[in-house]
């Protein structure tokens, strides 16, 4: 089964919506992110949401380097595929 088929992004998108104040329906690959400005607890929330959505973890340095949802998705999918 492919990674895509197993993914439910709802936890990740819900948490990102809370942090960015962008409605879930408006979140897309082009949505800009600035994880370096997040509170430490928000980073933990996103790590938990990535784990819940994709069943994987990503290095924190690479997570905080993402500048868009598209970059984050690419990072997470790459980790999940390994």
């Amino acid at each position, binding site marked *: 089964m492919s990674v895509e088929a197993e993914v439910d992004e709802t936890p990740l998108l819900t948490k990102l919506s809370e942090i960015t104040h962008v409605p879930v329906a408006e979140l897309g690959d082009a949505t800009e992110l600035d994880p370096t400005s997040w509170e*430490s607890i928000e*980073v*933990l929330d996103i790590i*938990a949401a990535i784990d819940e959505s994709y069943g994987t973890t990503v290095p*924190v340095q690479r997570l905080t380097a993402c500048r868009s949802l598209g970059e984050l998705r690419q990072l997470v999918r790459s980790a999940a595929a390994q």
Partner: protein
Amino acid sequence: MMPATKAAIAAIASYLPEGRLSNDALAMELGAWTAGDILQKTGIAERRIAADDECASDLGVAAAQKLFASCACTPDEIDYLLFCTQSPDYFLPTTACLLQDRLGLRTSIGAIDFNQGCSGFVYGLSLAKGLVETGQARNVLLITAETYSKYINRRDRSVRTLFGDAAAATLVRGVEADRELLGPFVFGTDGRGANNLIVPTGAARRARTPESAAEVEEKGSWRSQDDLYMNGAEIFNFTLKAVPAAVQELLARSGRALDSVDHFVFHQANKFMLDRLRTKLGIDPARFSLELESCGNTVSSTIPIALERAALPAGKDVMLVGFGVGYSWAAAMMRTV
């Protein structure tokens, strides 16, 4: 299985120092968070803090004296002392030697320190089991004690809100039984995570200097190279990978299903992490200890404190999982006696 000598946890007594650090006090000092914020984020309302002149050995002595006062055993009956700490009184001698003297234990016992953090209790149980079941000892006193507060910068909210000082004394005794009462065990080590929870200076690798004492700010927390540093996000990442895998491996090794385990006692790191692990593993809250509100994360003593407070009746199968600094982790099954 024919009856044979099997190691079992016979008694536990814990000790918390008198000093208290409440969320109200932290909120006043640290500013950014309210007492309610801290409770919600960590699950901790209060930590107990050792006095300036109170060391891990002092906490350990108090815990062991409580154990002896409970009539679980006498000091004369102890054959071996295992002392787990990362905040020893001295570089040398071994703190266990000091404890032998202060507790009035026989001079014919074995006594060693071992340096482990949050996995230390489970590692100590494995060492105790080995000593008991190979006939080297009948009664092993396992003491875990930490004073991490001495390593923490007062202005570092990332760790000051989490850690508390404590000690626990656990009696591991050989009893005649026709089944395992402690074990099997699963162990894990990954030193690539060493820098994510560390006191960088003060030992042989890096001396303390005026430069290392310089404090820097990161996301509202201040610390120097002489202070405890924790990369909480990477520790969380590690935990999400290592702990569920260890649980599954232990279940496989013990031939069990998750539902057949009566109770789970994980290292009490913080509520956020424990909630995520419990949910991920599909364990219902009633069978899962959450015991850190009144004492915080006490490192190697969290599991024995939670076990003591759970007060489980005899005959219960319990899974213990320790994980953290190192990285180091260990899981074990135990049956209450």
